[in-house]
């Protein structure tokens, strides 16, 4: 059971970050929205600061634990480009990703977010499982 403490605590911190941004700045911590607005030139200041913090996060973790978090990427460059395009197009078309829909949307009992989260979980599981069997 001990090994589930970091995911649980990490998840609670992600929730805390979302609540902080919501109660103080009045904004939804949805990463695809934040990056998309930044690219579109909207509310550059706060969105750029949030992204800067996101980049600092792994290094704060490194300072506190003595090592960077493991990041293992098995996909080939071609697959990464294809997958990246799908994630970019899909999150903007679907108005959100794992954070905006999956955390805040569910917490707000938004029917749109419940539909979106069910769909990206099902397609994500289907594709990853198929890829795993194929590999």
């Amino acid at each position: 059971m001990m090994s589930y403490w970091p995911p649980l605590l990490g998840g609670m911190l992600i929730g805390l970050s979302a609540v902080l941004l919501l109660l103080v700045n009045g904004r939804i911590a949805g990463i695809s929205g934040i990056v998309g607005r930044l690219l579109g030139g909207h509310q550059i200041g706060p969105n750029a600061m949030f992204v800067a913090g996101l980049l600092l996060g792994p290094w704060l973790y490194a300072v506190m634990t003595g090592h960077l978090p493991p990041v293992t990427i098995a996909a080939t460059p071609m697959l990464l480009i294809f997958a990246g395009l799908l994630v970019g197009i899909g999150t903007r078309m679907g108005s959100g990703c794992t954070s905006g829909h999956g955390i805040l949307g569910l917490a707000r009992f938004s029917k749109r977010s419940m539909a979106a989260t069910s769909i990206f979980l099902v397609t994500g599981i289907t594709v990853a499982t198929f890829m795993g069997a194929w590999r």
Partner: protein
Amino acid sequence: MRTAFRLLVALAAGTIFGFGLSLSGMVDPARVIGFLDVASGHWDPSLAFVLGGALLVALPGVAIQRRLARPALDERFHLPAATAIDPPLLLGSAIFGAGWGLAGFCPGPAVASLSIGLVSSFIFAAAMVAGMMLHDRLLARHFR
């Protein structure tokens, strides 16, 4: 002054988010694939704990938000207005899920992992940004 505090809060929220992604393991595509690939024989349920932990804090947070007239540093809450479960929402979520399942990256970890400096992260993030711009500047006109 209020603008400066708002920027500071955005920086703090981003840092806590990036730290949370790191601590939880969600920043690691291998962990994410280990959760999404349910037939691998060594399924890793960790990410259910990440989502559960996030909701554990977000649910009371939203309950507090509903009792407030406005956020601390703005005139009003900026919440999504759309309520319709329409084709772009469903199709977009399916496309996103497919990309997530292929590489194990969703937007938060893709951005956070950039600071670690792996070439693969940059390739994915560049393609993701290209996909976002492709959608916002071309596709959105046909779908909205």
